[in-house]
């Protein structure tokens, strides 16, 4: 059974239908709930569905609309949340056993903003534990699967978010991206994923992985939908002092302006055979399409991006080792029974954390240790500065940079689980953008010629210039026509 046409619509379309009263939010929400019910046993995108809360929000939206009040383009639209976002009264696990049973007393700022704008929260989506992973296989509650091929991963860590959006369970979802965790699953599931500039969206109420890299962003089926979602969640939050005071533009305003006149930087380091041939082919075709639309391709160099993965795997684990220290079994989540306090800490952490968080806690603790700090953490921070300078230099000659998102299409479940280094390399193209705090976007660039699995094109922009990324992505989307729906999930 394929998804009903209603669920196949974009947010923008559906908002129109809702305002014309062709359909109610409650009907849409019930259809989405039914779709989740019908598909999620196989997909496993959701860790928790909140039907009562969803129906109540949908009715609220319908009641407002009956009074002629519409709060935003998301009013009445079913949206999913990665389980990293704190939801008041709804268990939030971050994909980890150590947070099992944790029911937050408040909503994350972005959840508050979504609900205030009328969005209908459907539930909490599967993810790699503490957002550490690129395949969703690190979820303590079993992996989510790729709706294009259920034997493959949806990518990660926001795999549940991308899979759910692709499978037409929800119209959009929020994810987080620390090293590629929005863009890579979006690419592998054939949807649009945007990691905004660091500081564009509040991190308050988002379980921290690597605080200087984490950023919240939308995953949607169209570029315009992603723009609409970003408009709702972006902006300064006094509770997050790293959030920017810059005003939030209307991201949909110039989105149809096309690619003409854009200078697109093509980093030679990103197209040197580091990707599968089929991926590289689709990326080159997308670049050619831009040229055909009137954009100029410019060769640029990002010489330090080759150190990106190494620097990332020092900075991110270092911050994670500190961020994860609070999970001690005392105040929330899992508490393993034990005779002494020290044993309780040890047992709780041993049982509560999976292999990947443990690995990163150890890596990070080591990198910050006395005598190693300068050689590792400090050196890695210097690499960040160099990576950023590469981009600054590139942006003197171009408006945005384009390349692959992931070196491969969706890989098979189990294919890389035993080889963490291989898994880490899945983020080789996405990590620089986080290190440099820049906005990055993944937009569908067609299907792989042999495997018929989605390939994404990555666009990286100047700080706080999400608008240009969205405009360029929309131009390609229009050129390629609507992306097909995945068939494997039915």
């Amino acid at each position, binding site marked *: 059974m394929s998804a009903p046409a209603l669920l196949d619509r974009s947010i923008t379309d559906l908002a129109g239908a809702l305002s014309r009263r062709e359909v109610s939010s409650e009907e849409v929400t019930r259809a989405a709930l039914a779709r989740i019910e019908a598909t999620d046993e196989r997909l496993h995108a959701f860790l928790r569905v909140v039907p009562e809360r969803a129906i109540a929000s949908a009715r609220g939206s319908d009641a407002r609309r009956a009074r002629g009040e519409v709060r935003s383009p998301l009013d009445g639209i079913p949206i999913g949340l990665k389980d990293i976002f704190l939801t008041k009264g709804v268990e939030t696990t971050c994909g980890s056993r150590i947070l099992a049973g944790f029911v937050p007393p408040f909503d994350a700022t972005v959840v508050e903003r979504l609900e205030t704008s009328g969005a209908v929260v459907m539930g909490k989506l599967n993810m790699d534990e503490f957002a550490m992973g690129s395949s969703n296989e690190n979820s303590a509650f079993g992996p989510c699967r790729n709706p294009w091929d259920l034997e493959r991963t949806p990518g990660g860590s926001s795999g549940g978010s991308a899979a759910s959006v692709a499978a037409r369970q929800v119209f959009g979802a929020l994810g987080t991206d620390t090293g590629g965790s929005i863009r890579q699953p979006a690419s592998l599931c054939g949807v649009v994923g945007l990691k905004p500039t660091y500081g564009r969206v509040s991190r308050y109420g988002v379980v921290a992985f690597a605080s200087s890299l984490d950023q919240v962003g939308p995953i949607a089926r169209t570029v315009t939908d992603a723009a609409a979602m970003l408009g709702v969640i972006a902006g300064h939050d006094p509770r997050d002092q790293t959030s920017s005071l810059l005003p939030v533009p209307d991201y949909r305003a110039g989105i149809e302006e096309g690619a003409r006149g854009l200078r697109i930087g093509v980093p030679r380091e990103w197209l040197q055979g580091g990707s599968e041939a089929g991926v590289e082919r689709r990326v080159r075709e997308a670049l050619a399409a831009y040229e055909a639309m009137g954009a100029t391709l410019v060769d640029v160099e990002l010489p330090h991006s080759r150190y990106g993965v190494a620097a990332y795997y020092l900075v991110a684990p270092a911050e994670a080792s500190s961020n994860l220290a609070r999970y001690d079994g005392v105040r929330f989540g899992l508490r393993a029974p034990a005779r002494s306090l020290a044993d309780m*800490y040890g047992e709780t952490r041993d049982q509560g954390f999976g292999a990947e968080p443990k690995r990163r806690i150890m890596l990070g603790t080591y990198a*910050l240790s006395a005598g190693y700090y300068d050689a590792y953490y400090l050196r890695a921070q210097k690499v960040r500065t160099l990576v950023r300078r590469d981009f600054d230099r590139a942006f003197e000659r171009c408006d945005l940079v384009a390349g692959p998102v992931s070196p491969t299409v969706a890989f098979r479940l189990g294919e890389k689980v035993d080889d963490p280094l291989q898994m880490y390399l899945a983020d080789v193209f996405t990590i620089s953008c986080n290190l440099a705090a820049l906005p990055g976007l993944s937009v569908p660039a067609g299907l792989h010629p042999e495997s018929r699995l989605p390939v994404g094109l990555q666009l990286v922009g100047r700080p706080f210039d999400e608008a240009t990324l969205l405009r360029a992505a929309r131009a390609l989307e229009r050129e390629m026509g609507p992306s097909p729906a995945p068939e494997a999930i039915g």
Partner: protein
Amino acid sequence: MTREWQLVVGLEVHAQLLTRSKIFCGCPTTFGGEPNTHVCPVCLGMPGVLPALNRQVVEFAVRTGLALGCAIQEKSVFARKNYFYPDLPKGYQVSQYELPICVGGGVDLTLDGVERRVRLTRIHMEEDAGKNLHGVAADGSSGVDLNRAGVPLLEIVSEPDIRSIDEAVEYLKSLRAILMFLGVNDGNLEEGSFRCDANVSLMPVGSTVLGTRCELKNMNSFRFLRQAIEFEVRRQSEILEGGGRVVQETRLFDPQRGETRSMRSKEEAHDYRYFPEPDLPPVRVPAAWIEEVRRSLPELPRARAARYQRDLSLSAYDAGLLTADRETAEFFDASVRARGGGAESAKRIANLLTGEVARLANDAGAGTSRGKLTPEALAGVVRLTEAGTLGGPGIRQVLEELFRQGGDPAVVVASRGLAQVSDESAVEGACDAVLTAFPGEVERFRAGESKLLGFLVGQVMKGMKGKGNPAVVNAMLKRKLGA
């Protein structure tokens, strides 16, 4: 201390700031309260929370730094100090490390008439931890109270410039008085809002090479600080004299035994794995803000005491008493102003404030408060005294009334009939009556028993119900007795 060893001390002070809310959240900083009632997700260290820096904390740090002559850093950076302890909810303390807000500066002391300066290394901002509570639950289990977690602290670190126990105590007292004057700290050692760790070492007299130090903790009074260092000097000198080596370690002072004992050695010391706090941007203190704070600084105790001695000819002792706390100093200044200046009046005001008024406050358990007495009223009392309207016992009664009820001293004097009688004819009548009533004593006085004058004066005063002006009574009696 023995003859061979020179004591070297550096002090680290943790002072809780008197802000209304905590350093990174809106919870109140009030002391006490049922455990875990002044808490929120932020100071509980829940997943997903972020710190939002309280601007008042920065202002207090700048104020303190300026008062202590530090260089205020235009940019300073918070860092995470990582360690596991049950009272530390996040598993790290947000503090400052490589780039603190204040650098350098010092505290000037006078010790046995000698001027000394103890230099400061740095001052930084950080959050306090919670408190472990043992044996409070019915089942004997321990608990953690996080009311204090996130209360703002300044850590004030001195150079190892202190060379005697007296100097250590004097440094701590001076620093405490300055912080209290600035209104940034309440100076309460017992409740732990003003805490001190001491780094103590010995080196051979004449040496410039510092010995191995021990860090002493848990001294919550000046007396305990003294005891702890005394014990440590004995302990370390015994080790050194026995040819041994002092082991670098942290030692806990036990107030019951007056001893320090090993808490953890250098090998067991934490590796705090400091790194810049990614959740907080660097703290920027623009020059204009620093100047604004500088202009609002109060006159500090030493400068004030010097002024009292210079301009008002007060003794160093009185000047010290009056500048022991800001309330007293401000009250004194206001009273002198209300009286209209003059060293003589100032001396009288100082005597009343440090004498009678302090006694009244003490009896009432009012601390440094002065009840309902105002500086204007105190100035009025002095004015009445100087005019001869008020004398000893009257002053005491008026002050008591003003302390309890407030009001205008002239009105109190009039309504309670406390005015001194200086009228010659009234005094003369009373004197005559006494001379008549005690002919024997008059006889003996005239025969040379001059000390009987006091008795006769006393009798006159008694006859006048204590209201006679003693000077007038004295003069009158002497005249009548032909003395």
